[in-house]
């Protein structure tokens, strides 16, 4: 069973790292998309939403080409002394950040655009600096959106499959995440082991979403809807 635990641990690690990075990246991005009237807003929002529409194979294919030793990203990472990204955990993190980006940005964006202007004005009349306003007014008010973004990003990364299959190389302990492990078991007709993992994921998905709905229901905030 140790191979299974290894896959579970790796998957949780990937989801945690990806979620942490995405919250840092997505928060300012979502804020800007929600509040700015810049002409770039719509094009950028479209780019952010693209992973929702594109098949994972498109993303996997281009990542594989870009991150190859001769590709532009590959050249960059090599010149920085980082080596190349395909078949590594870091490569999966990069792919997951791109793939789960809309799941982090969109709930946050919805929460930010729902904030009342008066609250912010009140805070600024109390001489709160923009940063202070953001951390002591905006973020607490946007808590349901923040929670939704965190949970969805985490859960979506756990469920990632296509991109990982294309750039992961199925390496135990490095890139063999849960979904790939299940795929492997199914393909080799090891249904008992596949059930063990797949059933666990069904239960996990239900519990995560249930607690999200329960908590958001109590907070009375925006649920999953953007």
């Amino acid at each position: 069973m140790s191979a299974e635990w290894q896959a579970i641990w790796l998957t949780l690690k990937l989801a945690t790292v990806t979620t942490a990075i995405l919250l840092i990246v997505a928060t300012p991005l979502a804020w800007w998309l929600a509040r700015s009237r810049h002409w770039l807003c719509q094009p950028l929002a479209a780019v952010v939403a693209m992973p929702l529409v594109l098949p994972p194979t498109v993303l996997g294919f281009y990542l594989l080409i870009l991150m190859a030793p001769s590709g532009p990203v590959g050249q960059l990472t090599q010149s920085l002394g980082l080596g190349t990204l395909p078949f590594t955990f870091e490569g999966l993190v990069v792919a997951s950040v791109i793939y789960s980006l809309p799941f982090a940005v969109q709930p946050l964006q919805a929460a930010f655009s729902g904030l009342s202007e008066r609250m912010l004005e009140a805070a600024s009349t109390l001489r709160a600096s923009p940063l202070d306003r953001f951390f002591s007014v905006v973020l607490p008010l946007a808590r349901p959106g923040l929670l939704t973004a965190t949970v969805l990003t985490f859960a979506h990364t756990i469920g990632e499959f296509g991109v990982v299959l294309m750039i992961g190389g199925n390496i135990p302990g490095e890139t063999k995440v849960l979904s790939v492990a299940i795929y492997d078991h199914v393909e080799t007709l090891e249904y008992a082991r596949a059930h063990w993992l797949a059933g666990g994921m069904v239960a996990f998905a239900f519990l995560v979403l249930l607690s999200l709905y329960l908590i958001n229901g109590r907070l009375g905030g925006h649920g999953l809807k953007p």
Partner: protein
Amino acid sequence: MRLGISRVVLAVCALCLSQLVRADEILVAVAANFTDASRELAALFTDTTGHRARLSYGSTGKLYAQIEHGAPFDVFLAADRQRPALAEQNGLAVTGSRFTYARGKLVLWSPHPDAFEDGEIYLNQAPTTPLAIANPRTAPYGLAARQTLESLTLWTTWQPRLVRGDSIAQAFQFVATGNAGAGFVALSQVSAWPDPVGSMWPVPETLYQPIEQQAVLLTRAQHNPVARAWLQFLRSEPAQAVIRRYGYATDSPNDADG
């Protein structure tokens, strides 16, 4: 509006009709290493018989799992003899229809001409770049790659640098895109690769179990004359010549029953 609906109905009817007309079409499950050869064979099959063979590719293990779950394949062209034999045993294939249509050859390959001259020397160096193989559990060429590394007592050395493709096609693609320094692939894939420059080391056949690629007629097509015609065609000399041209060995026509 009425006209619109009747047009849709007409179109659907035409579609159904075209399906009926296409009754002489079969669906063949093809092991990934045989992709290019089978494409040419299917074209030749249409030219000589007028029938059509539609092809579906994957690793042998994956295709077997699909067949076991009722995938609508008529013929299975595997990359080993184990899965077709298993299909026969489990009543998924017609007993006695199994034969070896090609013998595969494993090579170590890189698109870079100066990657290596002697593959054994390359493999004995300390691993610096990923080495691509097909998943040994689902792909016979992956199994052969594993056997090769084990024969050379290098399996544990390379273990941390091995990247496993879902099928031999993905293993090839990892190497072709430059993401893996080299990889164990099928000679047929290198033969079909448009760029002839590169490094290739034919793995000595003493290092791995023979890759006997067997074809079998699946039970759902046991009364399908087109499927039988396709199997007949595969044994024919023109077809065997195509198969040889892609870098496989074939049995002589006399002992075609493997």
